[in-house]
């Protein structure tokens, strides 16, 4: 069985020549929950965009054994759901129902199948009663959950989430952790919040200056106070 994600020697430079990612090699198995941690500007979001085929550099990126190219892109985007940092960018339709239905409709599913996927996805994130609401009527926590529902309705095997804990209060953050830990999919999350990463991930990839600094067991890496401090991060409170 092919790995969920396999990246070999991937490098990418911004149009102005600044190196964003340098020689990234990463292999993620199905079912893993991986947190990509690092300071601001480390290249975390760019790495997620590379996994979804939005950033083209040198090296290889394989999603479920399929190399990212024009031919495989549609198949890859069906198996890898990509959730952006700002839910306002993710929720672009007039109602929540339409937004969650957008992906399944593009997959070519029939009306009843789409409805059932939308209902299930909204139920999973606890927004079943909000289907007819406009996204701008939702709170920050609800928007975040809705953004995840837009991905879940496509039933992907892999989900990438870019700083999903951003601008959430502790209650909403806890709700999000509960939701994400209940999902059976392979999860790849970027975050600057070490407590959030510790409560979710079993594996951590520490990225700084576009390079992988450390990759391995979440507890082992995040409890290394010297390593964390060296890269502008902190040890999670429950590991101190």
């Amino acid at each position, binding site marked *: 069985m092919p790995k969920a994600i396999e990246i070999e020697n991937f490098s990418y430079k911004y149009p102005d020549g600044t190196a964003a990612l340098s020689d990234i090699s990463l292999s993620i198995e199905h079912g893993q929950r991986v947190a990509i941690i690092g300071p601001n500007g480390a290249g975390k979001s760019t790495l997620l965009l590379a996994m979804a085929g939005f950033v083209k550099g040198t090296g290889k990126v394989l999603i479920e054994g399929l190399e990212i190219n024009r031919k495989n892109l549609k198949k890859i985007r069906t198996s890898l759901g990509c959730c*952006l940092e700002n839910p306002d960018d993710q929720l672009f339709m007039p109602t929540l129902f339409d937004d969650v239905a957008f*992906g399944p409709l593009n997959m070519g599913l029939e009306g009843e199948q789409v409805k059932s996927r939308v209902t299930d996805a909204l139920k999973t994130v606890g927004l079943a009663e909000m289907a*007819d609401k*406009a996204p701008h009527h939702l709170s920050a926590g609800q928007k975040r959950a809705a953004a995840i529902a837009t991905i879940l309705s496509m039933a992907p095997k892999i989900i990438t989430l870019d700083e999903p804990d951003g601008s959430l209060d502790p209650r909403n953050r806890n709700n999000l952790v509960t939701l994400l830990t209940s999902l059976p999919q392979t999860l790849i999350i970027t975050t600057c919040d070490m407590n959030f990463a510790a409560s979710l991930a079993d594996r951590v990839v520490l990225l700084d200056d576009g390079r992988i600094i450390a990759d391995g067991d979440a507890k082992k890496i995040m409890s290394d106070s010297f390593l964390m401090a060296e890269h502008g991060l902190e040890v999670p409170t429950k590991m101190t």
Partner: protein
Amino acid sequence: MHHAYIDKFAYQDSPIHRLDSRAKFIVLVFFTAVVVSLPRTSLSILFCYAVGPVAVLVIAKIPLRFVFKQILLVSPFVLVLALSCPLYDKTPVKVAFGPFFWPTTVGWMRCFVILGKFVVTMLALIGLVSTTRFGDLLTGLQKLWMPKLLIIQLGFLYRYIFVLIDKVHHILRARNVRRLKNLGFKRELKIAAAMVGSLLIRSIDTAERINIAMQARGFDRTWHSLSKLQIRRCDLLFALIAIFFMLGLYFFVKPVL
């Protein structure tokens, strides 16, 4: 941030809210056409026409205070147009209303008729927007063979106008916290231009990210939608009542002015 949404009553429930958006939209288009085509001597008849949309608003439980606030918000453009009429047409004319009559000019008559038509058509438009969810309206328009590109753009406009308003508020707040004195018209204008430029760049960034979000969910430039609309007997009844109301007024009620 919470805004005074133009459609904040569209999520209520009433017989008018439950009507199909296509029926309401078609009635609105015909109603507007009939009102706009009324002659300039029909000021008093306009009051009769106002009965229709007011009845719709009352049945739908839309507060009239909210309605008139919305009309006031968009009135400046029409006010300028209407108030310019008395300036260029000063032909004297006598106006009678029952036993009363008074001298005026054609320009003033035009002015009041323009304002009257504006208020009556706005009552109908707010009636539609306040009783129809925007998503249903877009689906209805799509079913009425409106170009898909226009529907998509309307959808984005509705979705992102509030995000844009938020951004404007943020930029204005950032300026206000550092603005300790008036810097003079020229400098203020320069700052305003920079703020508009920043807003434009942010909007382009947002558009790029939305494009990513759309492509990530398999968008291939073909717009698919799931229609939940269904024309029922009550929709036909509503359209029939509206048509009889408009035709009755148009053919049987003559101007008294």
